[in-house]
């Protein structure tokens, strides 16, 4: 865990606490960022489209990770909070607000709704609390489906105009890539910062031993609320970006199944790790993409196969992949990555 490169000594607390520790790492980080944002100029639209989807998922999953990984609260409502963000953005844009302003506002609105559904955590604990979040997953889409259909468009939902910036219209995968990835980068850094400072420690303390945390001065309730707020805020940002990505949103897009997938991404990636959500979201989305692509390929190779057989690929791969992870790699890809990194550093002295 605490391995670091030879010759890299702490000269101050600030240095010890920094994420990026030396010049080499700074170089790599900058190169990575340049590569990240240069990608749309080389890669084809489909790859970029998949990356966009991964980016949006990453944001939602980081949020969920704050609640689940750091605070230890199961939430079955992440997709619903995304819905709040998406609808906020769509309604605001419809009302003439610039999308770029609507994006952070949507995050805040979703955060506040998250706060509302976090309130039961004052009294309800453990699994009962998870079920309280399930009611968020039931109530929020119901709300958008049935209440004030003049504003929220009811069942068919809302259509959002693509955002603009001067002459640029963000309506292609390549253009949308930039706001999405920029938000991802900001969200990743903010989450990392939260995790390593006062709030993050308080949340982990509650996760690891809620009673001891309380006895040592960390107010459980208000911190759980903060976690709910942050988690939903991230979901709201993801939702707003999703509204930009999909342009037509309706309540069916934010189903319980989606929430389950986000949970799956957290597990696969590794709970309570900064890298986990990124790896988890990427892995599950790529897996999904692979199975979706594989079905037609298989149907071409084996035309006698019934269509239904191929159709089972999606749920079965996701289900089995998740099961395998839970049994064999419960700490997720991030943990595996740490081990590989450590092994690499110690090479050739593996033992």
């Amino acid at each position: 865990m605490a391995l670091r490169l030879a010759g890299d000594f702490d000269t101050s607390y600030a240095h010890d606490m920094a994420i990026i520790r030396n010049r080499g790492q700074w170089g790599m980080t900058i190169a990575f960022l340049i590569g990240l944002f240069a990608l749309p100029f080389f890669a084809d639209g489909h790859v970029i489209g998949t990356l966009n989807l991964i980016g949006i998922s990453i944001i939602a999953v980081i949020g969920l990770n704050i609640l689940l990984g750091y605070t230890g609260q199961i939430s079955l409502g992440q997709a619903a909070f995304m819905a709040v963000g998406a609808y906020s953005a769509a309604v605001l844009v419809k009302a003439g607000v610039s999308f770029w302003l609507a994006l952070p506002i949507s995050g805040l609105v979703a955060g506040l709704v998250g706060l509302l559904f976090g309130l039961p955590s004052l009294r309800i604990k453990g699994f009962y609390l998870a079920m309280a979040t399930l009611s968020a997953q039931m109530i929020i889409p119901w709300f958008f489906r049935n209440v004030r259909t003049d504003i929220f468009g009811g069942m068919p939902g809302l259509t959002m105009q693509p955002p603009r910036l001067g002459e640029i219209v963000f309506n292609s995968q390549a253009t949308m890539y930039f706001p999405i990835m920029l938000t991802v980068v900001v969200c990743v850094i903010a989450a990392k910062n939260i995790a390593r400072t006062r709030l993050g420690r308080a949340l982990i303390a509650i996760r690891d031993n809620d009673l001891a945390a309380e006895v040592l001065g960390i107010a459980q309730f208000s911190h759980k609320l903060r976690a709910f707020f942050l988690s939903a805020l991230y979901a709201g940002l993801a939702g707003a970006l999703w509204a930009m990505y999909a342009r037509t949103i309706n309540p069916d897009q934010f189903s319980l199944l989606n929430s389950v997938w986000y949970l799956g991404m957290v597990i696969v990636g590794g709970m309570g790790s900064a890298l986990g959500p990124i790896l988890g979201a990427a892995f599950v989305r790529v897996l999904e993409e692979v199975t979706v692509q594989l079905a037609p390929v298989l149907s071409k190779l084996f035309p006698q196969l019934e269509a239904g057989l191929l159709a089972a690929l999606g749920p079965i791969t996701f289900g089995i992949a998740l099961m395998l992870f839970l049994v064999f790699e419960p700490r997720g890809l991030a943990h595996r990555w740490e081990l590989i990194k450590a092994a690499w550093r110690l090479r050739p002295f593996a033992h």
Partner: protein
Amino acid sequence: MNWDLFPQFLATGLLTGGIYSLIALGLVLIYKSSRVFNFAQGHLLMVGAFTTWWFSENLGWNVWLAFAVAIGVSALIGLLVERVALRPLIGQPILATVMMTLALAQTLQGAAIIVFGAYQRSLPALFPIQPLVLGDVRLKLNLALAFALAMLGFVVFVFFFRFTRAGLAMRAAAEDHQLAQSVGLSVPRIFGMAWAIASVVATMCGVLLANISGVELNLSIIALKAFPAVLFGGLESVPGAIVGGLTVGVIESLVGGLPQDPALRALHLGDIAPYIFMLIVLWFRPDGLFGLKRIERI
């Protein structure tokens, strides 16, 4: 408000609630014994219904025979699920088991498509399609009989728990795993038994439901109604499952049926009322109405 229809909706709600209760019973059985909340209960139900269909339509057996065989098969499925998916997770945090059942739900969905196909099927009628008229109240005979069967199931299970050795062993294991092991009970075997029974209960529900609404993949959705029921009644309580299920059925029916104002009806409140009601109940009784309260000690 359609107050004159109140007895009608109350009765309909109770009958539908009976089915919810039975699903809730399956959830309680597993939770009580192994502290696992089974999100795949709805999918077990769907698989059970398809299995019955497969025996009755594909192999041409009598539907009651098919039902009986399917119950046996579903017990095996329950055992298999526990052995393959849940047992490796003993000792892992609650979240892992929750995720496992969610993963299981997906896997069962895929497996059902592979084995049975994604088509809607229909079962030969177990009960005649006929009205049951009691004064002003009109009920579906098949739903009423399904309700009766569900309640009979409850009686059987209560009897099982109270008066059989296996039932006593399950109750004991549910209270304290380590203690149960210390007196020589095999806790893994009891977990397996709980899953087998829950799977059997699910199949019963599945067939009763399928008999009313047909066999299809979406049958699993019905479990979403049982979740508030079981939380409302308390996760560990068999009577809670009955009360919770019936309450959810009644609330859904009354809230959905009573309002007369079209604007109010358009809100489709019946769908969401059980969840709102659950939140309210949990606020005042954080462990449900009949859930066990524990004294926390550090």
